[in-house]
């Protein structure tokens, strides 16, 4: 059983604070590291993998320091975000080389290639691979020595739905075997589908932590904002404001639309069409006005 301890870790680059005083424990099973682009996920994963020194704080794996300790890689497998990977080799040559660097042989390499279902293309040059194929060969190179900790930075980027599902199955299986698997993503659905535990980071800070139900609740319980155009904005506003699911309505004369803030997401989405129908009002447009992931995250940080 392998546990990764991140203890009051910060990392800055010049004036930019990429990771700001993060403390978390990554336990066996699958953990998702969720955050928008630029949140500090890669920086944190690089420190977890021993490729970057924390400016302050420490990262330890079962009590052993990770930074400047090459023996730690007997236990760690890494799938980096960057694409480059000895493109002049074939997939098989690449994975065999990775196995040899662990003191293992062709057998371990072949097994890893089979695990990611890349045997069919193993003798092609990596330079001819699609993004999804590259991702799977990287995965194979990280698995050759059957690590107890697997770190993956945005592993689903560029994968088609079928490949994504395959990799999710594989990671789930590894989590079930008792390995510690951590992957980063900026897509909530991805993390929800796979991770039994989620760590959210935003702007370098640790924003939330828990299983997907808790994170989902944090996200849906916040006020939702909608921009609504209808055949009679005033009548619609009057009818909606009476309901407790609506916490605020503003008539935007310039836009010719209503800005509505709803506190109860489920109730409001049922209410709006019903009210419109009852009052004979035609809804011309209903659009969420702040559904970007960033706004969801900034809400989480403020909470």
């Amino acid at each position, binding site marked *: 059983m392998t546990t990764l301890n991140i203890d009051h870790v910060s990392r800055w680059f010049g004036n930019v604070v990429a990771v700001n005083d993060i403390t978390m424990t990554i336990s066996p099973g699958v953990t998702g590291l969720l955050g928008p682009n630029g949140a500090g996920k*890669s920086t944190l994963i690089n420190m977890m993998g021993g490729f970057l020194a924390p400016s302050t704080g420490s990262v330890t794996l079962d009590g052993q320091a990770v930074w400047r300790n090459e023996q730690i*890689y007997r236990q760690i497998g*890494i799938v980096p975000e*960057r694409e480059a990977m*000895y493109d002049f080799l074939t997939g098989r040559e690449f994975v065999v080389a990775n196995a040899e*660097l662990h003191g293992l042989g062709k057998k371990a390499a072949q097994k890893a290639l089979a695990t990611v279902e890349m045997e069919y293309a193993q003798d092609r040059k990596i330079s001819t691979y699609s993004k999804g194929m590259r991702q799977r060969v990287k995965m194979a190179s990280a698995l050759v020595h059957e690590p107890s900790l697997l770190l993956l930075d945005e592993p689903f980027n560029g994968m088609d739905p079928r490949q994504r599902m395959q990799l999710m199955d594989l990671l789930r299986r590894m989590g079930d075997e008792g390995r510690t698997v951590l992957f980063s993503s900026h897509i909530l659905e991805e993390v929800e589908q796979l991770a039994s535990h989620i760590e959210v980071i935003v702007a370098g800070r640790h924003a939330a932590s828990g299983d997907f139900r808790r994170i989902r609740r944090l996200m849906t319980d916040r006020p939702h904002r909608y921009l609504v155009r209808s055949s009679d904005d005033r009548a619609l506003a009057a009818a909606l404001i009476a309901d407790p699911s609506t916490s605020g309505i503003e008539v935007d004369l310039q836009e010719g639309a209503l800005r509505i803030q709803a506190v109860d997401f489920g109730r409001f989405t049922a209410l709006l069409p019903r009210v419109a129908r009852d009052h004979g009002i035609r809804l011309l447009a209903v659009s969420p006005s702040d559904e970007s992931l960033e706004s969801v995250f900034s809400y989480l940080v403020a909470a």
Partner: protein
Amino acid sequence: MYDPTVARLTYRGLLGRRRALILGALPVLLIVISVAVRAFTGTDDQVAADVLGGFALATMVPIIGVIAGTGAIGPEIDDGSVVYLLAKPIKRPTIIFTKLIVAIAVTMAFSAIPTFLAGMILNGNGQQIAVAYTVAALVASIAYAALFLLLGTITRHAVVFGLVYALVWEALFGSLVAGARTLSVQQWSLAVAHEVTGGDLVTSDVGLATGTVLLIAVTVVATWFAGQKLRTLTLAGEE
């Protein structure tokens, strides 16, 4: 200390099609020049020494050294693929030492062999000139490979700095300023070469002892330092 897998990856990267073409261009040029000189002037020991000293040792060897030395590690650090070496339980000095061996072998192959061939073409090794410059190219290959491997480990602009050193310092500045000449891999290797010919066609500004000590010191210190640098090499996200 030496890891055959690291060596294989380094050779394949270095001798990829494009870089191999660049590595091969100067030796081909040297041979062409030698054939032309031989055809026009016949065999002349002084001319042979001028071509080998002025072009082969002063220009070709350091440039090959820059390409092989920085190329043995620089591109991997640049594109991030070095992570696949670093994420392994291998001592960092072992990675550097292995890459040094590869860089030395490639520099020697692409510089010493053509130097010897050119010497044979120019004057058939008269007065041991071909052998002397070949020895100079061999020992210079070691020091250049170590220096430029270090440069490739510490800076992204290793090729530029390397070429500036090779062309400005060794070739140009060195011929103008006396002080610069004693701090020059070329002069140190010439001191060794002088020992081979004994005559005064191959001379150096430094003595054999000084040259040898400095060659060894530069090689050892550069290699040690590169190993230390690799231990704390940080991989940050794409900026």
